[in-house]
């Protein structure tokens, strides 16, 4: 059918036949192209003299009735992360998922998304995914697996399941929990363990200390006037971070009663960057500050000694602010902090009348809330004791990410049968007797709870690409209930509640992507001061920590390592470091200076037991006497496809230094330079604004006395008539964008979404290092103030779509010019690659295909399946840039024309706008005074970037507004711009 062909011609290989497993063989014309890709240059002239090779049309044999070829279809489903559910709406073309976005009806996403959610698409098509079951490393069929499991089952039945252990990530999925329960019933002696390297143990233990039971917190930041965060990063971590971002930003609009955020952090994070006051200290010291804060608020806690004057003033002001906003205040404890701090946070919140107002205590969303570290330790000990007969690892790689002191890999040797069920042939898989490919969430049925307990169903968007089994399969097999489709399993579980698959409630739940009324109920509990006090007393952090501290954090994109081979996420610049393709030892400028080292110099970090060598990266805002390294790198994956895994040789594995006693920070390390350098690929090399004020800043006070943003540069007079002449006058919508720098948290979701929507290639570390990254919307990060406690400013920069575009008049072929809707269009097929447009672009938002970035990948066939058929795939030698998602504009325009109506405000939503969790990006018709974007642009704080150049950008920004506490303002506004360049 023409539509699959359309697709194919833009680089997709998906054939529209009824079996999605059909071989992904490229069509002849494309293969010949592949061969000639290089030579087309030389043959170029000649090639133009021979007719285009004929193309194939491959129609369906039998067209599924809900498919309209050439038109997108959208489905609601659920993606799992750390066991929690994220509701998503997935766009498919001819049965091919090509875009993931948040589900507006789902509490965890609210229609927005983050980089990882966007990149789950790449995860689905990841060429490195394992493609077939392996028995002792040799490919076997699923039937062979089933047979083998049957015999295992026989063996286990005799012993009542003695020695059978199942290891999963924390589980919220009601169905999975129920089925595992059933498994335990049929094998009374079996055990179910949970492990996740980033599981939120401290929160669980903390609530147990505070209340004697596990309790979840859900916040209502939209009701808060003051928020204090004790370490961590509530805008980036935890299952509720997207909801947090939405609520938080809703109260950050400049004006009376603007929310004030206080952040103590041990590693620069998004919350710290967004905060009005950030206090940077090594992780163990946070306990002490928390105690001081509690004391200031009159809680009877152990005294905190040795605070510096600055800390003292900071805590005092913070406490005063909290006290003044009783009932409208909120205290958050970060995951890296010990349980006692979480318990203390509960106590503080209670003391501030937060419960029922700015937060709710609820039943946990987890089916079995337990500190997973204990669960895993138990398992490991049993393994070493040889008590484990069969271990089933579902969606995990403990051999890689278990704390080093558990010696998990060794333990595996002593287990007679290890079955690994995962996406990759990873460390655990290679030690397992059986490796079973795990179906991706987009390939399976299931369900999961969001942070607030709401259940959403998971439905497959595509038949499995490889010979994989869904998450729910193995327990069923062990229970002898196979073959049975995961769909049946889920449907059966919900039979009672939603009726059968034919029943309306079930269909409704599928359509809406959420099961109504499943949020967990709030619980009425009261903190127990004594218990909390005891816990605090024995928390080491209160003693002086021997410097330096090594802090473990999840990679902002690669997480605990499960996205290590995800090209999009590896190349997506990390929000603060702007690093790609590697992790590094983050070190404060002061410490680096003391050690006499700089960026890229390799440091050796050793604890008694283990040693790693990793390059240093000097990061303003790192606490002194502390190093931070990201987990999730240096993961050994054997690619399911040909060639090496993309994760090979990327970054350094920090897990060997991580122990049960020190999951997030460990002291007693020695650090020394090795005297070697290791090249890192960052996308931003200069960190000061050089007095050019690309980001305009002011304080709430200034806004309130009616001062608008710093005056714009005077517009230069022009020889030519202004405003731009005739063709603009046709009655067409005039597209424009407004970006609210105050709402932007710098999370990079926009960049990821743009990459997914616009077929933006991944270029690899070497090209990034050469300064050739391709992202259409970059997020600039500037520092101001003291390098050790700088203020961090983010600024998303897409094409500004200047009305007087400097790029246009220098193009010799007219490949970039204006259309009547005010778009600065880029016509790839007319571009000959002089790059003069980029030279003349003051914003440097243009990207160039210096070599062939699209057909280079070995697995081009598989990867090309995720391409958006509405967007041209750019060949080598062609300039490209943000188009304001012109394909979406075009679709809206054509739809409106078909329905014979004008394009309504909101008909066009750009990918970045759709993804943004804080609604920082507004897009629409600026010629319509009533449109959202016009209203945004009318705001007094709205300004144009480099307006003095008279480029008349269609993209404008709203100045960043801080809301500092009066007591701290004077010494916090340190003028000297000492952030390193």
């Amino acid at each position, binding site marked *: 059918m023409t539509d699959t062909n359309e697709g194919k011609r833009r680089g997709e290989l998906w054939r529209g036949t009824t079996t999605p497993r059909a071989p992904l063989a490229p069509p002849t014309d494309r293969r010949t192209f592949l061969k000639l890709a290089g030579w087309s240059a030389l043959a170029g002239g000649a090639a133009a003299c021979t007719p285009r090779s004929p193309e194939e049309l491959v129609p369906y044999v039998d067209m599924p009735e809900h498919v309209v070829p050439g038109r997108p279809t959208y489905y609601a489903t659920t993606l799992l992360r750390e066991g929690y559910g994220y509701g998503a709406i997935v766009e498919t073309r001819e049965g091919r998922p090509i875009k993931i976005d948040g589900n507006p009806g789902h509490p965890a996403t609210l229609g927005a998304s983050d980089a990882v959610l966007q990149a789950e698409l790449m995860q689905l098509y990841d060429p490195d995914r394992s493609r077939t079951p392996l028995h002792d490393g040799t490919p076997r069929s699923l039937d062979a697996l089933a047979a083998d499991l049957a015999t295992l089952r026989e063996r286990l039945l005799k012993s009542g399941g003695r020695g059978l252990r199942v290891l999963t990530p924390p589980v919220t999925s009601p169905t999975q929990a129920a089925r595992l329960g059933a498994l335990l019933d049929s094998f009374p002696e079996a055990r179910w363990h949970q492990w996740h390297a980033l599981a939120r143990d401290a929160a669980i233990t903390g609530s147990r200390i505070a209340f004697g039971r596990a309790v979840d917190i859900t916040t209502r930041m939209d009701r808060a006037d003051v928020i204090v965060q004790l370490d961590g990063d509530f805008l980036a971590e935890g299952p509720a971070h997207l909801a947090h971002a939405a609520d938080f930003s809703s109260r950050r609009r400049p004006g009376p009663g603007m929310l004030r955020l206080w952040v103590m952090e041990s590693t620069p994070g998004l919350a710290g960057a967004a905060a009005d006051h950030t206090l940077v200290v090594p992780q163990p010291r946070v306990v002490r500050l928390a105690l001081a804060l509690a004391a200031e608020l009159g809680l009877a806690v152990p005294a905190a000694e040795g605070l510096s004057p600055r800390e003292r003033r900071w805590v005092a002001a913070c406490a005063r602010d909290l006290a003044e906003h009783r009932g409208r205040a909120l205290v958050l404890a970060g995951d890296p902090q010990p349980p006692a701090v979480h318990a203390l946070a509960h106590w503080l919140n209670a003391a501030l009348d937060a419960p029922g107002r700015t937060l709710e205590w609820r039943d946990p969303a987890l089916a079995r809330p337990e500190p997973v570290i204990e669960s895993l330790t138990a398992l490991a000990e049993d393994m070493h004791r040889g008590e484990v007969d069969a271990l089933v690892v579902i969606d995990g790689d403990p051999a890689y990410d278990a704390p080093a002191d558990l010696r998990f890999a060794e333990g595996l040797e002593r287990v007679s049968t290890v079955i690994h069920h995962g996406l990759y042939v990873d460390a655990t898989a290679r030690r397992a007797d059986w490796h079973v490919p795990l179906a991706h969430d987009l390939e399976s049925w299931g369900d999961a709870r969001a942070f607030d307990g709401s259940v959403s169903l998971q439905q497959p968007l595509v038949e499995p690409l490889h010979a994989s089994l869904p998450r729910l399969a193995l327990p069923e097999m062990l229970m002898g209930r196979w073959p049975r489709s995961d769909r049946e399993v889920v449907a059966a579980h919900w039979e009672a509640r939603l009726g059968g698959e034919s029943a309306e409630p079930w269909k409704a739940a599928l359509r809406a992507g959420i099961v109504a009324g499943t949020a967990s109920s709030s619980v009425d509990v009261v903190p127990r001061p004594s218990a909390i006090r005891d816990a605090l007393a024995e928390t080491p952090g209160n003693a002086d920590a021997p410097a330096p501290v090594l802090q473990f954090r999840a990679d902002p994109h690669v997480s605990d390592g499960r996205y290590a081979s995800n090209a999009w996420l590896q190349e997506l610049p990390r929000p603060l470091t702007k690093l790609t393709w590697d992790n590094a030892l983050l070190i404060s400028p002061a410490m680096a200076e003391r050690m006499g080292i700089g960026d890229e110099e390799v440091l050796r970090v050793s604890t008694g037991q283990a040693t790693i060598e990793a390059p240093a990266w000097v990061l303003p805002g790192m606490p002194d006497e502390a190093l931070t390294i990201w987990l999730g790198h240096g993961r050994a994956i054997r690619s399911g496809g040909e060639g090496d895994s993309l994760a090979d040789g990327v970054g350094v594995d920090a897990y060997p230094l991580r122990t049960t006693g020190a999951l997030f920070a460990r002291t007693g390390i020695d650090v020394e330079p090795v005297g070697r350098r290791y090249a890192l690929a960052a996308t931003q090399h200069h960190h000061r604004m050089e007095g050019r004020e690309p980001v305009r800043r002011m304080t709430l006070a200034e806004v309130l006395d009616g001062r608008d943003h710093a005056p714009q540069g005077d517009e230069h007079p022009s020889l030519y008539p202004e405003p*731009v002449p005739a063709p603009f006058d046709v009655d067409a919508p005039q597209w424009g964008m407004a970006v609210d720098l105050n709402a932007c948290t710098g999370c990079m979701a926009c960049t990821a979404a743009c990459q997914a929507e616009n077929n933006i290639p991944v270029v690899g570390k070497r090209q990034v290092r050469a300064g050739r990254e391709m992202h259409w919307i970059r997020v600039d990060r500037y520092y101001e103030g003291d390098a050790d406690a700088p203020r961090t400013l983010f600024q998303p920069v897409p094409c500004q779509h200047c009305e*007087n575009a400097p790029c246009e008049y220098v193009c010799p072929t007219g490949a970039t*010019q204006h259309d009547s809707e005010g778009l600065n269009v880029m016509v790839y097929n007319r571009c000959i690659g002089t790059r003069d447009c980029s030279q003349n672009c003051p914003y440097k938002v243009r990207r160039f295909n210096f070599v062939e970035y699209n057909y280079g990948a070995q697995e081009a066939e598989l990867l090309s399946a995720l391409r958006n058929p509405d967007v041209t795939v750019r060949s080598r030698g062609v300039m490209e840039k943000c188009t304001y998602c012109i394909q979406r504009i075009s679709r809206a325009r054509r739809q409106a024309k078909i329905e014979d109506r004008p394009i309504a405000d909101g008909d066009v939503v750009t990918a970045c706008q759709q993804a943004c969790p804080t609604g920082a990006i507004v897009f629409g018709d600026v010629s319509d005074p009533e449109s959202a974007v016009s209203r945004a642009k009318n705001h007094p704080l709205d300004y144009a970037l480099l307006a003095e150049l008279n480029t008349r950008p269609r993209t404008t920004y709203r100045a960043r507004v801080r809301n500092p506490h009066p007591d701290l303002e004077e010494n916090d506004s340190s003028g000297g711009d000492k952030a390193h360049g």
Partner: protein
Amino acid sequence: MSELSGWLAEFDEVDDLVEAAHRLVDAGHERVEAFTPFPVEALDSVLPPPRDRVTVWVLAGATVGALGGYALQVWTAVFDYPWLVGGKPMHSWPTFLPVSFELAVLLGSLAGFLGMLIGNGLPRLHHPMFAAKDFDLATRDRFFLYLPGQNEAREALAGLDPVHLHEVPGDDDAG
């Protein structure tokens, strides 16, 4: 070789040539032509100037280039497919000047070159003159005077006491 078309007088000094040319012209001979290894400006005042003018060719070429070039730009950029570029007017005349100028120079020079060739009737690989004895010295260091005709021409030239006299074999077209 049929009957002669004319005679060549050979000199080995420029001044002799010039002086001889004078005497011939004064004697009322029109179709006198001189052949020299390098341009001899002294002869300009003696021998009649060529009727055609190379400069006219050049002027024509340059004009066509300039006007044509500008017209092409205006037609393509303003009428055939107007583009909105950099917010500039369709007819941004200043930017049309460079190309017009270059085209003027290009066509001007080409016309000049052609004008010279056509005026000189080149290329002309075969010419009776080449058959004359020692004529190859004309590009070396000898200077020749040519007078068409039979004996009277011979007489006239001989009267100029040249170094040598050569006969130029007859041909359908001389000159």
